[in-house]
């Protein structure tokens, strides 16, 4: 029963309990930050899977926006259930990633990043021009119902928060399990030496395709949650290229060492952004950019590497670097 020895499993479980309890005590704006962190964290989790394979996407706002619009559109045809909406958003992005994956799995390095960017900008251009979809104004998203019940006022966000937290918990555990499986372990093999991987009898392209679909599913999920949390979808705040930059930002901020780190990083990102925006609206981007530069220069493995530094000091024995 290795699962009961797994620190990440316990960390995530305790984290879930803590935020579920906190959810009822928090101010609404903090709850909203929590929701946004979970949504963006999910996208960053998808990027983490790709990152481990040495691939970086500068266009995951594509799947984020696709999932968000899928939720908004499914409401138009009368699907108001939160779970159904999130499933539709996730699957829609997963399918898109599956289709594009046939192309993208052939690309590496900067070409992979830029092809993703191109696709996300195409979606941006289409959405910004389509009158049916509200062009640059976007479309409103109603409060969802949960198995037939539609909570009102503050309860709406409390319910959505609980709901999202539980799904995120399950998803994070699933990704954690995946990364330690054979297919997941191949992620690092793809980055280190593709030719050797092929000689072992695996297909690097197939491995990348699978990862790409996972990352698309996660980004679609994040977009769906974001659409429900914000109550609105529009191209500029969801699909335009700086959004893709934000997701990579969170991945770097968190480091790729652990799935839990991604959500801590996402929370840190949202907190920095909210406080910078509230207290220094003139220089909030300066603070964001500055934070990112400090991380890139001095903490290349992200916030998570701080815990490893501490761990090492406690053990006071050098452990082999990952």
């Amino acid at each position, binding site marked *: 029963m290795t699962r009961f020895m797994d620190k990440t499993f316990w960390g995530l479980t305790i984290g879930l309990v803590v935020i579920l309890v906190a959810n009822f005590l928090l101010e609404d704006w903090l709850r909203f930050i929590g929701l946004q962190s979970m949504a963006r964290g999910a996208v960053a989790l998808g990027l983490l899977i790709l990152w481990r394979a040495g691939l970086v996407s500068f266009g995951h706002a594509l799947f984020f926006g696709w999932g968000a619009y899928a939720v908004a559109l499914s409401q138009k045809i009368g699907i108001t259930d939160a779970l159904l909406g999130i499933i539709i958003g996730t699957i829609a992005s997963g399918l898109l990633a599956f289709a594009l994956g046939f192309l993208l799995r052939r690309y590496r*390095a*900067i070409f992979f*990043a830029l092809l993703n960017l*191109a696709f996300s900008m195409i979606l941006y251009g289409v959405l910004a021009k389509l009158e049916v979809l509200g062009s640059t104004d976007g479309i409103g998203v109603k409060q969802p119902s949960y198995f037939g019940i539609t909570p009102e006022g503050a309860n709406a966000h409390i319910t959505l928060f609980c709901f999202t937290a539980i799904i995120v918990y399950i998803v994070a555990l699933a990704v954690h399990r995946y990364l330690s499986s054979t297919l997941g372990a191949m992620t690092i093999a793809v980055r280190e030496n593709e030719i050797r991987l092929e000689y072992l009898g695996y297909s690097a392209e197939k491995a990348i395709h699978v990862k790409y679909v996972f990352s698309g599913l996660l980004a679609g999920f994040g977009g769906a949650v974001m659409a429900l949390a914000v109550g609105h979808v529009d191209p500029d705040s969801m699909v335009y290229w700086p959004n893709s930059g934000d997701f990579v*930002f969170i991945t770097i901020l968190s480091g790729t060492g652990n799935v839990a780190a991604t959500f801590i990083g996402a929370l840190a990102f949202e907190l920095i952004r909210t406080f910078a925006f509230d207290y220094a609206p003139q220089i909030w981007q*300066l603070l964001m950019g500055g934070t*990112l530069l400090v991380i890139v*220069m001095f903490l290349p493995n992200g916030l998570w590497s701080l815990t490893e530094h501490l761990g090492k000091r406690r053990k006071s024995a050098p452990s082999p670097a990952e």
Partner: protein
Amino acid sequence: MDLQLLIVIIVDGLIYSSYLFMVAVGLTVIFGVQKVLNVTHGSFFAFGAYLAATLIGVWYNAELPAFGGFLMIFLAAAFLGVVFGLVIERGLLRYLYHRDEHIVVLATFAAFLALEDVIILIWATDPYFAYQPMELLGWTDIAGLTFDNYNLSMVGVSMTIALIMWFTLTRTRFGKILLAVIFDREMSQSMGINVNKVFLVTFMIGAFLGALGGAYVAPTISVQPGIGVEVVVLAFAVVVIGGMGSIPGALIGALVVGISRAASVHLLPEVELFVIYAIMAVVLVLRPEGLFAPPQARKI
């Protein structure tokens, strides 16, 4: 299709291509030499536009000779080229050359975010207008349509830039050194080339060109926050279509993007926003290295 429409598309397309070339050539020079996909290029453009607009305003308020406004455009770009070369290349990038390329892209993205606010701190959020140089040049009738001479002059400026670049790369000592560094950085270093200096100089040239794009366009637009955000992805598209690191590529990429944008504006406005990225995606799919990729050295 009637002839007038065709002429409009071609002239508009050429003007737009020239503007794109000015912006994209700096990006491709920096990518070619340093292998850095530089997001701060959007900031160079925005700073160029702001500084030129300010200087032009000062110049005309002092009622100095009217054509000096053009001098201000080049002065602004040259000043910014030197400053950004020192700040971004010496202050940031040189610590990152040994890191993964996407880390470097992200670092320039971070610097780009920060510089967006520096612009607001310096110039606040109100738009700037510097229309005087544009008024000065008047207009021309082509096939019964009126075009601003200022816009047409952009074609000349970018062709001059292209010629100077071609001459420098093929006919001067610095150009030969640059080609050697692009071809094999380590080998040229061991042959006694000061690669750090070459990097700094090319970065300054690249930043100058980016700022010049913004400075030259400034009289034709309202200079306001956020102008760099759109330009930098456009420049990416141009550079990717033409081939990253290739100067003829930037020219071809700018022409392809400029003409197709002009055609879509006049024929099918619905697709205007994404036609460029659709071409970029198609080129990446069919020829990922771009239409005019510089040959890659095979190293053992």
